[in-house]
């Protein structure tokens, strides 16, 4: 069974996240210029300003879902006319704002003076931020990132860099503050250091039994969204990787009798983390990795780290804009997944088909076929909405997962 005892890194995570939310509320109250950003907008940019802070509605939505108030906030958005078919992150955020931050685990987010969205994960997000743009009457800057089917084109990288420069100018103009690129360079170093530790942490999944569960790694993603470019960020991931290495040295594993090593494709099922990890552990199964966490710190289609090695930070930031799964095509997704599956010694893949997130899900049927055929690995598809618990049927999902375990078992018998 997975241990429910909080690790040192777990406690540290709670502390830095609590501090982070308190800090942004406090600084906003003291007059800082507040920007709401999409998760893929490189937050290190804001380190170049004296008094600009950012908040991430997607991260807040994930936290809300993990704390059990996702469906409640979704309903608030639905009541004011937003369709239940829209992405649950968007509904949580719109519902939270509509109700003045009530029921939010972080007391909502400080009111923004500017919005910065991008369309690399999805252009739905631009429509979502437009809702606030109109409601709040504040500017909305859109970073346009060309989707890629093969490695990012040089031309697209330059185009993205131009936009980052434009964004800096826009913030300078609106906040009245000057931007200092040296501070961005410094922030990039912290991020890069943290990313190296993150990759070290994820690589411990290759151990048998795995030193981590994907569920832990999902939770541990939070600083990527809210603390990039800070010393706390680098320090947190150092602590996490060191601690996990120590657990391996002490032979303490989340699923000690691990028989089935699974891989997860799609966003974390935030409302199911505890249930799902416990239930799988009872079956001696562990989800040891996920495309959602493996793509961080890479470039599109790769499993390998891609770290900042000096030079123009804007160029590096632009180069990593297609890294996350949604901004690139199926061939690249499959390449990275195959590499992860082989490196980590995965027995089976769970494709979580997520009607809330079409960009992540629409290629999954074909990708599943590809993985099964080329890698000879059994896979299963279950329906999960990442943040709206009302759209998840436990029984159907576990029936399918049990079937997956049976087919892994059947494969083993055949081989032996």
């Amino acid at each position, binding site marked *: 069974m997975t241990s429910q005892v909080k690790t040192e890194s777990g406690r540290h995570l709670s502390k830095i996240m609590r501090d982070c939310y308190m800090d942004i509320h406090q600084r906003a109250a003291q007059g800082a210029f507040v920007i709401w950003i999409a998760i893929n907008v490189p937050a290190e940019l804001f380190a170049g300003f004296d008094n600009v802070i950012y908040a991430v509605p997607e991260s807040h939505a994930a936290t809300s879902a993990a704390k059990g108030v996702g469906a409640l906030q979704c309903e608030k958005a639905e009541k*004011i*006319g*937003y*369709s239940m*078919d*829209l*992405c649950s992150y*968007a509904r949580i955020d719109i519902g939270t704002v509509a109700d003045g931050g009530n029921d939010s685990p972080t007391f909502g987010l400080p009111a923004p003076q500017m919005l910065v969205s991008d*369309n690399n994960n*999805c*252009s*739905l997000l*631009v*429509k*979502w931020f*437009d*809702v606030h743009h*109109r*409601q709040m009457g504040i*500017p*909305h*800057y*859109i*970073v*346009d990132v*060309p*989707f890629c*089917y093969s490695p990012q084109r040089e*031309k*697209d990288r330059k*185009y993205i860099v*131009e*936009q980052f*420069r*434009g*964004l800096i*100018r*826009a913030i300078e103009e609106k906040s009245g503050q000057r931007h200092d690129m040296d501070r961005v360079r410094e922030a990039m170093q912290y991020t890069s250091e943290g990313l190296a530790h993150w990759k070290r942490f994820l690589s411990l999944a290759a151990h048998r039994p795995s030193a981590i569960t994907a569920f832990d790694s999902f939770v541990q993603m939070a600083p990527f969204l809210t603390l990039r470019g800070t010393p706390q960020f680098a320090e947190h991931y150092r602590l996490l990787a060191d601690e996990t290495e120590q657990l391996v040295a002490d032979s303490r594993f989340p699923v000690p009798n691990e028989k089935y090593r699974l891989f997860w494709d799609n966003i974390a099922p935030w409302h199911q983390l505890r249930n799902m990890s416990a239930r799988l552990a009872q079956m001696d199964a562990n989800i040891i990795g996920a495309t959602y966490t493996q793509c961080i710190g890479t470039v599109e289609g790769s499993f390998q780290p891609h770290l900042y090695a000096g030079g123009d930070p804007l160029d590096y930031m632009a180069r990593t804009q297609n890294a996350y799964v949604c901004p690139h*095509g*199926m*061939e690249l997704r499959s390449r990275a997944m195959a590499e992860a599956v082989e490196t980590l010694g995965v027995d089976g893949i769970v494709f979580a*088909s997520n*009607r809330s997130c*079409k*960009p992540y*899900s*629409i*290629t*999954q*049927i*074909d990708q599943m076929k590809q993985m099964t055929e080329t890698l000879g690995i059994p896979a299963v598809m279950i329906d999960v909405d990442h943040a709206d618990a009302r759209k998840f049927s436990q029984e159907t999902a576990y029936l399918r997962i049990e079937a997956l375990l049976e087919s892994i078992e059947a494969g083993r018998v055949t081989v032996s």
Partner: protein
Amino acid sequence: MYNDDLIRLLESGRKVIGCFPLYPPLELFDAMGLAPVVLWRFPEPMPETPASDSHLQNYACSVARRLTDFILSDAGGAIDGVFMYNACDTLRNLPEILEHGTRAAGRPLPVHRVHMPMVGCGQEQDVDTAGFIADEFAGLIQALETTYGVVFSAERFEKSIRRFETIRDLCRQLDMAAAQGRIPFADFVRVVHRTWWMSAAAQVDFLTGVLAETREVSPEPVTRKITGRVLLSGILPPPVPVIEAIEGAGLAIAGNDIATLYRAYAKMPAPAADPGRYYHQFYREHFPCPTLLYTADERFDTLLDLIRRRGASGVIFAGEKFCEYEYFEYPYLENRLKAEGIHTLRLEIAMADASISALRTRIEAFAEMVGG
């Protein structure tokens, strides 16, 4: 398998380019001797999509599912290539599915893509969108020349732009005829949708003929007893039974803000010999559509202006189920319209839109409200 229009198109000897919605560069394909068809809906009704269902989940919109089904089924053999731009999150994931599927079927399809800059209006000074688009179109022209052995000519391009201006102008005239009740709205939709499967020259002849007939049969605006005038808005027009239910409830459809109709023919820029320049203007100055992200700020005013010009007092939003672009805007539009005294009704049109009895009741109640 194919209807007469498609057969004629195939017999023309031109290579057929299946264009993903929403607003592909039809003029360019036509100028290069290719036959573009926009894959919105298909010559034959498509109530089921078995070929698509083994690739796409049922929460993809009906446009994507039908398009995929058409290309992956035998009917797709009529297509020589596919074109797409970054119109939406669902569509951007389809090219590789289609490439794989057609390769597996032994008829690999070339897929041509361009990226259309979606930066906000106020950001034009930050990035060279004109240069970006010019570059994308230069690449596209080169790919078309290599793949199909055709050649670009600036002269033919300008000529083609003029032909499409004629087509759009004819559509606008027919649109007005429908607004005046001189042609039933459902017939008007059928006419415009039929043109998708015709060559540009055939479209001009066909639309001219329909318009002449309309003028002859019904030269004056038709007055019938109506309870109110409404505008239809959506990606696709609703199915014919829904249109009939709207008109049957006493409402006149005085205009539309539909992607396959008015949004597509409302306006186009002046002819230009340079595709980069032309398409920069074409997309940046397009009639607002939720998929053209940078047009969002103009959408309400444009819609209201159309409503006023057509003397409508209600809007029916025919929402394409699972199209986030449309759905995100509804609450805002509804609230603003309400404040202007305009009634709104939101209908959800799903893939299996078999029964309209529930919709009919809502439409009738809405008609009473608009009339009241």
